[in-house]
């Protein structure tokens, strides 16, 4: 199909267009590619990945950092500044980046490799599969801009990264929630022997989980908040959104529990089955990812396979589509992954 004559995506910003509902709202501008996810006034912590990595690398001289021209945008520059001779700038060549990391791991080093999630998943899959994972090499692939964390458009929105990587045997997949989770996960994957893909929140990263009795453990899902009506199983920053949604719904006397499952693969089947098996709770899986192939489908298949039947099963996830460009708050509302949108969805599902 030719697009040469339109219709064009966008266009509502032209004078006189747009829906009536939008009429009195100021239009947000697309933020910088690497905008912080933090809401105004939210506590944040700077570059939790970079700082955790230099801490763990202090006693681990075999840890090296490698990037494809994106150290500043993946917080690996923190490592590069601390350990300049352990940092490898491989150029904007992601395929080579993965292969060279494999070579380094062959020689006994532990490369922490960074790029954007879209490029690692879509562009370098075969190089990770055949260069790294098939040989079980100890490479940590840490990627910024996972899911919908940039308004830049589909070129940089990795809405399918988990779907892509879940199919890769022997690859551990981690999707941390906030600054605390990212820092602890960084140390945990450094201690783990084997290939890992970690979704990276970078820059000023919201700090939320320090208010809870929580610690990251690789392969473990943790119940962060209990609730009698709904169980949200979530990963990444959607756990933060789920906690916000849960507080709002509490005001409406809807009791929402939140089970944070930052290790997508291998899934903590025991905890998920136990929590989802508790009688009478709707199960909602919330993820910053396409509804196809992510945590939602992983949990659904698990529950089906094991005969666990919650009264209802729903997904809060991105649609199976190439998403719009725009400001992140606009897009998160539009695609249902803001706290408000999520609370509204859950309320709607409960009232049916």
């Amino acid at each position, binding site marked *: 199909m030719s697009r040469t004559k339109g219709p064009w995506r966008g266009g509502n910003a032209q004078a006189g267009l747009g829906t009536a509902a939008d009429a009195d709202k100021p239009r947000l501008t697309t933020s910088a590619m690497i905008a912080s996810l933090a809401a105004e006034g939210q506590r944040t912590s700077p570059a939790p990945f970079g700082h955790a990595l230099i801490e763990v690398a202090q006693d681990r001289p075999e840890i090296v950092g490698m990037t494809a021209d994106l150290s500043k945008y993946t917080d690996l520059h923190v490592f590069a500044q601390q350990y300049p001779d352990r940092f490898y700038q491989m150029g904007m060549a992601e395929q080579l980046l993965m292969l060279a990391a494999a070579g380094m791991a062959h020689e006994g080093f532990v490369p922490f490799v960074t790029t954007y999630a879209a490029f690692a998943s879509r562009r370098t899959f075969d*190089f990770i599969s055949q260069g790294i994972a098939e040989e079980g090499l100890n490479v940590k692939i840490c990627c910024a801009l996972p899911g919908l964390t940039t308004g830049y458009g589909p070129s940089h929105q990795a809405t399918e990264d988990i779907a892509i990587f879940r199919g890769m045997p022997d690859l551990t997949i981690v999707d941390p929630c906030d600054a605390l989770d990212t820092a602890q996960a960084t140390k945990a994957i450094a201690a783990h022997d084997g290939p890992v893909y970690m979704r990276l929140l970078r820059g000023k990263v919201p700090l939320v989980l320090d208010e809870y009795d929580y610690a990251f453990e690789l392969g473990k899902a943790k119940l962060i908040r209990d609730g009698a009506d709904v169980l949200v199983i979530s990963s990444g920053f959607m756990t933060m959104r789920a906690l916000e949604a849960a507080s709002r719904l509490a005001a409406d006397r809807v009791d929402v529990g939140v089970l944070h499952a930052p290790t997508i693969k291998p899934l903590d089947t025991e905890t998920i089955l136990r929590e989802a098996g508790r009688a009478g709770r709707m199960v909602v899986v919330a993820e910053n990812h396409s509804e196809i192939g992510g945590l939602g489908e992983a949990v659904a298949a698990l529950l089906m396979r094991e005969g666990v039947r919650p009264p209802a099963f729903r997904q809060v996830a991105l649609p199976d589509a190439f998403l719009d460009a725009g400001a992140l708050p606009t897009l998160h509302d539009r695609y249902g992954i803001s706290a408000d949108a999520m609370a509204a969805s859950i309320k709607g599902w409960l009232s049916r």
Partner: protein
Amino acid sequence: MEAQQPLANTPSLEERAYRIRRNALRMGEVQGQGYIAQALGVADVLAVSYFHALRYRPEEPYAEDRDRFLLSIGHYAIALYAALIEAGIIPEAELETYGTDDSRLPMSGMASYTPGMEISGGSLGIGLGIGVGMALGLKRKNSDRFVYNLMSDGELDEGPTWEAAMSAGHWKLGNLICIVDVNRMQADGPSTGVLNSEPLAPKWKAFGWHVQRVDGNDIAALVRAFDAARAHEADQPRVIICDTKMAKGVPFLETREKSHFLRVEKEEWQPAIAALDEGRTS
């Protein structure tokens, strides 16, 4: 650890190449197929690699002080097995298992199956990039060992090959030696028609490499080229472009219409071995 040096009573490189070809033909016969034309063509390169250039101990194929030899072209496994058998890294008896279920010698070379196989190279075009990482790693360890990467001319079609070539030049990886087997035949036909990568030498040179192009079936020329590559003083990666003849050493196969996957009939394997024996030079 020193390179394998020919002692008075050790076989000549020509004899090593003959035995590598013979091992490959015997494996081909077991399986009834195999990338035999490539194996026969590259046998001289492997003989010079394993019995002149490489430093290793057969009984300890992963010793830290070995030179690394990467087979980027997974389907050349039959050729490398033949060399690893001749080198004493794989027992000769195991040749009978080539390509059979549960063998350590599968059709495509994989590190997890075979002693002495450094990487899994079946997905073409990945060896040189891994070689860049290993060369960087060896430098980090202040090792003076070399990384050799054997690739085919077909792999020059692959983008990552050139990412790696540019990177090796950038990092001045004088410990990386790339061997390109130019047999001019790819899966769909002659290389120059599938995707012309010539002129090769100027390309590599432009990427910052020390370049040599030799007759890959001329053992004396190969020895000179490997020696020059190792002795080259500048901090540059080194490439030896080897023009080889497919099915070299078995005249009735050499003249057969060339194809990527040369068909050899069941009754032809023994005559092929006989023809090879006839041309034995030592």
